[in-house]
């Protein structure tokens, strides 16, 4: 196992290298620069600024310099916020985004898993109907519509939770639900389909024939096989949750890194955009690795080698 993890982590390096290079050159090939949109600067001032950020060097030199900096863990100065480094800004935003994403995933897995489980066990019952209606609704309401509506109802209308902002646990509820609902719906459908498939199989009949309690049959025998599709969905889902968090952070005014990414891209803040892309990618790669390990643990047929 440690060897496997080490090999996979080593595999991150080429992937990250490609991501960084691609983003770097895509940004630089595009028209416009970080100091274009303000009023026209005097020639000398502009040259000084560009020299300070090494923008006057050849693209190739800049690229090598940037790679070297990243290897040392330095993501460079922000072009937009000259007094602060990208490390500093991401250090502030990253834990916020991570917490939001984690809560959304918990909502997705717990809510979706429970709904799908009940629907699968009580097939064609009222519970099944309700759960599947929720699932259809969930995949059809975009989070940027759901978010404002929830805000309108629970924050502005009923006043149960704060409208926007960040700080206490009450601030997390609405954004996490907004972000997690789509994936909860999808997880519910996957779980239900998995349960229906597993429940007809021989080993479940054997477990029942042994006289085990129904709860044991379901939880001990059926669930571990039934949730395998859910586990393999967690990888793509986490990628999508990260993307969705950009919108949810905008809607609820949450100081995460999603907003840095969008404003950074709009302002041509090269280092900021690269920094957010690197953080998101590292997060995603690590999470995919975790998912693969979990999968191997649940499915004895899969060996991590």
């Amino acid at each position, binding site marked *: 196992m440690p060897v496997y993890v080490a090999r996979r982590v080593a595999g991150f390096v080429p992937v990250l290298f490609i991501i960084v290079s691609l983003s770097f050159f895509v940004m630089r090939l595009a028209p416009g620069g970080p100091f274009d949109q303000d009023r026209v600067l005097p020639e000398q001032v502009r040259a000084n600024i560009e020299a300070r950020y090494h923008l006057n060097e050849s693209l190739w030199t800049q690229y090598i310099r940037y790679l070297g900096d990243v290897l040392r863990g330095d993501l460079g100065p922000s072009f937009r916020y000259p007094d602060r480094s990208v490390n500093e800004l991401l250090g502030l935003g990253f834990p916020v985004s991570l917490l939001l994403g984690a809560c959304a995933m918990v909502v997705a897995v717990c809510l979706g898993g429970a709904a799908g489980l009940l629907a699968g066990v009580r097939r064609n019952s009222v519970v099944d109907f309700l759960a599947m209606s929720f699932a259809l609704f969930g995949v059809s309401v975009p989070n940027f519509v759901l978010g404002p509506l929830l805000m309108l109802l629970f924050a502005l209308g009923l006043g149960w939770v704060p409208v926007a902002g960040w700080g206490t646990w009450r601030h997390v509820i609405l954004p996490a639900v907004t972000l997690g609902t789509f994936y909860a719906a999808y997880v519910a459908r996957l779980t239900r389909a998995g349960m229906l498939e597993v429940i007809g199989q021989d080993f479940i009949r054997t477990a029942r024939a042994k006289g085990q309690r129904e709860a044991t049959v379901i939880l001990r025998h059926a669930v571990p096989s039934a949730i395998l599709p859910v586990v393999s969905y967690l990888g793509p889902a986490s990628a999508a949750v990260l993307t969705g968090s950009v919108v949810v952070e*905008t809607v609820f005014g949450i100081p995460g890194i999603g907003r840095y990414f969008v404003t950074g891209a709009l302002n041509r803040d090269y280092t900021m955009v690269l920094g957010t892309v690197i953080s998101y990618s590292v997060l995603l790669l690590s999470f995919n690795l975790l998912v693969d390990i979990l999968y191997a643990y649940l499915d004895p047929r899969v060996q991590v080698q």
Partner: protein
Amino acid sequence: MRASSAECRGPTGAPRAVSAASPWMDALRRLRRNRVAMLGLAILTAFALAAVVAPWVAPYPYDRTDLRYGARSPTWSHLLGTDELGRDVLTRVLYGARISFAVGILATLVSLTIGVTYGSVAGFRGGRLDQVMMRAVDILYGLPFMFFVILLMVLFGRSILNLFIALGAVQWLTMARIVRGQVLSLRVREFILAAQAMGASPRRVLVRHLLPNALGPIVVYATLTVPAVMLEEAFLSFLGLGVQPPMSSWGSLAAEGAAAMEAYPWLIIFPGLALTTTLLSLNFVGDGLRDALDPQATLRR
């Protein structure tokens, strides 16, 4: 000559062999019996028609502002109300439908083209090439792809054409996997061997024999791609990175609505409702098609 006409018919219903008992007719019958799917289809048809004829039926020009009637709640002259600049919401929602449907169809076509080509080449060639190509797909799956779309949109201009291409270009991964899996399992079947024995070129085998037989899953997944790209367009427009004013899309309307919802809730409710209804209908139709074309299919993709 005779050999080639026999070949055209194919074993399981290549398009030319359609008869009353063909699997496609069976599927159509099953689909017709699915009430929810037919309801979805009816709603979609109505919306699509409305989108096409929007310039003629919309009650007002989409960019006409009238500050005297700013931010009015729904009335008889403005059925869905007006926004803060006095623009008619019904008109803007209708024009938004044009964007959404165009994106849904065109971006799906882009993803279809890339995905089918990539997947069929990988599955058909097999071996080392297949391994490398699919490993690449695995890696791409793990990347935060929407971030590249956002980057591309920001950097290369927010034109609608860029939007179609960027969205289609990131949506082909699952399609490639599905097609590759189908081709891989079909290419060892006897009818392919027969075609090859008759001297059909690899290209002909692929296009005439393999792909028509893989059409079911391709159609089903393409139907499910449409809501996905619509959602992504709306997502980008919501962030201000998609369709630019004065054009409106459901996403940009929702963004304007969300900004003003406390005072004028109808500004978010109507575009949101249009988008949700469309996505719901598309999901109904997609599920219905899946059940109709492949009764054994589970949700697993």
